[in-house]
């Protein structure tokens, strides 16, 4: 019986997603546009950049360092068979700049900052703080949502640049002092194959899109959460899962479009 129900159920679920996506999109547009509202506060924006960005920095640096070192090792063992270890710098830099930097930054951001954001907005809703704000004639979209959305858009690219740099440095530390690749070749090969617009800026553009996507999903899940302790908990889980999958999906689309 379950097997027969599967297809119609799937169809119903997909159909049910359409209006929800519409509401979420409306939320995004209104939330971003609320930057022009008179209740938008630059100070709140700074606070959120601090909360979402600065507080994620240590995590990003540690993760980037290890990622770079692993790339150094794996790249070396793959290239040494072809006697092409001179391309190690290129390999490390391109993997980080084009893919690993933006994607890992976004995934870690979803886990660290996105979940906190969902829980915060969700519990504000559950304890009627959002309704209270609305009753005090202060638009919660402008006061609560807009600073968080914009902070995500600002913070993720910055975190990504730092991730890229620390990662390359980690790769260098393994390649040159540990594995004995020539330092001059490492940098020279990297420089001749990495372009500013094609690789660095496209990577950052990805990070910008991911930042928007992750904060959007996180804020929306909190805003639409069932106003109970249980509801906020499940919204937080959903926020991380949805945001991570969405990042990987969007990464595929962006890669296909940007890097020809």
């Amino acid at each position: 019986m379950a097997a027969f129900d599967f297809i119609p159920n799937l169809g119903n679920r997909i159909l049910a997603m359409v209006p929800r996506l519409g509401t979420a999109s409306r939320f995004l547009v209104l939330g971003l546009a609320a930057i022009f509202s008179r209740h938008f506060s630059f100070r709140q924006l700074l606070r959120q950049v601090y909360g979402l960005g600065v507080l994620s920095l240590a995590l990003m640096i540690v993760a980037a360092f290890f990622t770079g070192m692993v790339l150094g090792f794996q790249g070396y063992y793959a290239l040494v068979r072809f006697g092409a270890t001179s391309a190690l710098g290129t390999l490390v830099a391109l993997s980080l700049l084009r893919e690993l930097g933006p994607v890992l930054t976004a995934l870690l951001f979803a886990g660290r900052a996105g979940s906190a954001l969902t829980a915060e907005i969700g519990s504000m809703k559950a304890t009627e703080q959002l309704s209270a704000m609305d009753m005090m004639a202060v638009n919660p979209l402008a006061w609560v949502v807009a600073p968080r959305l914009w902070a995500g858009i600002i913070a993720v690219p910055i975190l990504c640049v730092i991730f890229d740099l620390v990662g390359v440095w980690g790769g260098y530390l393994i390649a040159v002092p540990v594995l004995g690749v020539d330092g001059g070749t490492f940098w020279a090969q990297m420089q001749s194959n990495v372009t500013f617009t094609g690789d660095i800026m496209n990577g950052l553009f990805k990070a910008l899109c991911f930042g928007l996507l992750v904060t959007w999903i996180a804020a929306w899940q909190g805003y639409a959460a069932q106003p109970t302790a249980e509801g906020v908990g499940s919204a937080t889980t959903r926020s991380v899962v949805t945001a991570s999958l969405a990042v990987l999906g969007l990464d595929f689309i962006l890669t296909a479009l940007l890097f020809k």
Partner: protein
Amino acid sequence: MERRAVDWWVGLFVLLGIGALVVLATRVGNLSGFAFSNGYTLSADFNNVGGLKVRSPVKLGGVTVGEVTRIRVDPKTFMALVTMRIDPQLRLPVDTGASIYTEGLLGEQFIALQPGGMPQDLKPGGTITMTQSAVNLDQLIGQMIFSKASGGK
């Protein structure tokens, strides 16, 4: 007090991001994409461009002086028509030659320019007539085996 700490940290965070971007741009990437953006274009016909790609470097005496901007087939001559952008400060004689070389055995391919001795310069949009195509490794190995085999008899 706390307000100041937030401002301070956010400022530092943004500066760190900008600093990291500058280091990435100069140390990890090359800004060559920008350096030749105001350069002049030259074109050259090759029988075979091998693995040459758009953005492959154009070198003179080992120094990068430009990049490939476009590769297409000339429908009349059936030759590969390569368009490149050259450093505007560099004036090349009309009898300059262009060859496609490979950097090392597995490296990327690039165009090497050999300047001639004529007093006239190539004008922007001009064509390099003396060209040497990419070396076809398969052909080369085939030839070597063939000559070895015939020589051994």
